[in-house]
């Protein structure tokens, strides 16, 4: 199978980037999109050219590492599928595919198709948990959870934090991601005590990270590989509104976003002594 991959190349965030076209004649319908990039990278290395950087790890659609735009669609044309599981049989022989990184202010570019998604970690850090220290839990069956609640919680908890929702949103909003965690924990009886504070903190953090505001367009759920339902955003808004009243006496602080990777260690070792 022949393909042309038109790939965004950018050595680092501070440098300018551009599209470079790579014709391939050794693609194969059973390959995944990432295997296609592997094959191209093997050729590039052999030719002495810098291979394309892309994020990946489990390659079975669950770790959330991979993801880029294919012809303008986050994770490409197949519904509920990450690029690691997207096989080339969904494309036509001779087709040109444009591969671009997630583009959002809150996801600064690192290299080529790789972006920095630590903003998501900070949203969880701000309150996306139930405060229960190890050892303090009652028996598992001491807290009955209605099957329907457990199932709904699981639907939201399935989020893999890939960032497709942000990339697909014209506003680069993180409402689906944030709403998914707020919904997952808010539905369960274990999560009720912190429901208000959690909503206030997570929404505040989402805003300071530089994600845009949600205007209910719904592109996010359309590209979500785990099909997180749009209703999690409604649940988040409801929780936030209620919490703004119930928990109004709580001062909500946020974590200052950072984009630096260098740990600034005093130990500077010259790599080429």
């Amino acid at each position: 199978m022949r393909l042309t991959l038109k790939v965004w190349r950018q050595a680092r965030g501070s440098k300018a980037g551009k599209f470079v076209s790579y014709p391939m004649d050794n693609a194969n319908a059973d390959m995944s999109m990432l295997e296609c990039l592997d094959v191209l990278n093997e050729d590039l290395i052999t030719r002495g050219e810098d291979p394309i950087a892309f994020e990946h790890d489990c390659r079975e659609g669950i770790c959330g590492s991979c993801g880029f735009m294919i012809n303008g669609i986050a994770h490409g044309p197949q519904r509920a599928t990450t690029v690691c599981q997207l096989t080339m049989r969904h494309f036509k022989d001779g087709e040109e595919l444009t591969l671009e990184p997630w583009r959002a202010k809150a996801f600064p570019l690192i290299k080529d198709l790789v972006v920095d998604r630590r903003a998501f970690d900070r949203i969880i850090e701000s309150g996306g948990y139930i405060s229960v220290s190890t050892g303090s839990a009652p028996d598992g069956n001491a807290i009955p959870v209605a099957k329907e609640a457990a199932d709904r919680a699981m639907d939201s908890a399935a989020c893999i934090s890939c960032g497709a929702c942000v990339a697909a949103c014209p506003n680069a909003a993180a409402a689906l991601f944030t709403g998914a965690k707020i919904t997952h924990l808010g539905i369960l009886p274990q999560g009720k005590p912190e429901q208000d504070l959690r909503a206030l903190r997570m929404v505040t953090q989402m805003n300071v990270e530089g994600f845009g505001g949600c205007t209910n367009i719904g592109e996010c759920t359309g590209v979500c590989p785990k099909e997180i339902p749009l209703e999690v955003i409604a649940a988040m808004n409801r929780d936030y509104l209620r919490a703004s009243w119930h928990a109004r006496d709580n001062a909500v602080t946020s974590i200052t976003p950072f984009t630096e990777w260098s740990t600034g260690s005093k130990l500077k070792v010259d790599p080429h002594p």
Partner: protein
Amino acid sequence: MELNGRIPTGPIEQVWDKARFDMKLVNPANKRRHHILVVGSGLAGASAAATLGELGYNVKCFCFQDSPRRAHSIAAQGGINAAKNYQNDGDSIYRLFYDTVKGGDFRAREANVYRLAEISVKIIDQCVAQGVPFAREYGGMLTNRSFGGAQVSRTFYARGQTGQQLLLGAYQALERQVQAGTVTMFARTEMLDLIVVDGKARGIVTRNLVTGEINVHLADCVVLATGGYGNVFYLSTNAKGSNVTACWRAHKRGALFANPCFTQIHPTCIPVSGEYQSKLTLMSESLRNDGRIWVPKQKGDHRPPNEIPESDRDYFLERRYPSFGNLVPRDVASRNAKMVCDEGRGVGSSGLGVYLDFSDAIRRLGRKAIEERYGNLFDMYQRITDEDPYVVPMRIYPAIHYTMGGLWVDYYLMSNLPGLFVAGEANFSDHGANRLGASALMQGLSDGYFIIPYTIGDYLANNKPIPVTESHPAVREAVESVQQITNKLLSIQGTRTVDSFHRELGKIVWDYCGMSRNAAGLEHAIGKIRELREEYWTNVRVLGSAEDFNQSLEKAGRVADFFELAELMCIDARERNESCGGHFREEYQTPDGEAQRDDQNYSYVAAWEYCGPGKAPELVKEPLEFNYVHPSQRSYK
């Protein structure tokens, strides 16, 4: 060298309680003065880092991924075992202990396994409290499913994403501690060496994968929770980034590596489709609850599966193992699949596959019930193969999945290097020669939530660390050694890519040290591995620089370590003249083709000491004693 497992004496039901009571405690006010490094953020690492943070220690946690939530524990599908006996089907701590020792083919320590079974019940409680959405009955109670190697239903699950949900629970607990300021997280940071001062583990050297900076982190002790080494086979169900580097470099600094040849081949993976293939995809073992495994009775029967009548099908597991049937342990299921394929009865274009058929279950329970149980797995299968498993039986074939071997640890999960603790798949401890399904999640969380936090306290209370600074010769030496390897890899500028070497290495290990092994093959493999490694160090091509985001360079260092590990695996497999669990030596089998153990001579843990480059490793034996579960020929018939 003498190995002391520090296994407490006394009745097995009481030893963990007693050990905990005998441990010294660290004054709560002093905990924040103790610095602990946790390398890896999977189930074991994240749960250990979070719990140590909750206790008040000063923790740094490292992962090579962009976020701690991506560790490969996330991909575990089927479930987690716990001896809750909620199903009232006769389960107990003792039964889980018994099943695990037997399932491991009597090559694990009894005391460790008993503790694991004991802690299993607390893990479920903890995870439920964190908000892990386990499957429920309509009455709101937790539900269970069965898994291989057990006749009770003790596996808790969250659809086909149990590992994901448990890891997110641990990750969220970890993020809570990051916010509290007790844990500092270092993502995109790879450990490249262990710093040993006066025989004690005191720090690590890391490379920042974005900037290339080499950093030193010093502490009072180090926890490695860096997972298994299945990627030595190149094609495995592990994530692409999973590697042995942290453990291997600790091994080269003196930590013993135990039972490296104990690797697990998982019976239900999607068969290989082509040369370009980068990884194998697992289909959860839970599928064997309702799927029936078969091949055609006749060699060369190429009819489509739905046209082969019942009378021409061989349900070989049900036939050979009537009492466990399709639910035999993984090693047995894998070996039998290989056997029928070797006989020429395999299915699919490569002939390396067997059918996993759900038509009976769909007829009996209805499509909806099957969808509810396995929907996401069926979708995944269809996405990859373009075949609909509701209509056509799945094709599956064994693939490397888990490694029981790992760094040697004592009962307190400390390696022979004081101050170096090893948790989760990275250690060798609890699964013997074969791990039962749904036990890896249990072990990772048991180590991280409930064992390491106690045992580290005991270590710190007993050992007052001497101050070490970055100018210490051991630190400088470790940093220089890391730089040397990096510079060497970049300077070779040969003609072959890292992946091409890795693929070739993987094929050697799979062919000669995979599902079955023999002495001559292992000898041959050792020679081939050495040859290929020599070529690697003269002909590999790594482009780019050390001061950048350079994925080829990351891989190159990891593959270099896989070469050395591969050789040790073969040496260990050659040394062990018996078959047990996942280690099947063709020379040692019963008349009906089952693994034949030799308890007289091989009832020990084989721990290997690194003796320097080019030197043969030294074998140190830790004898195993069985006072409760008496070794017998494992039978699932």
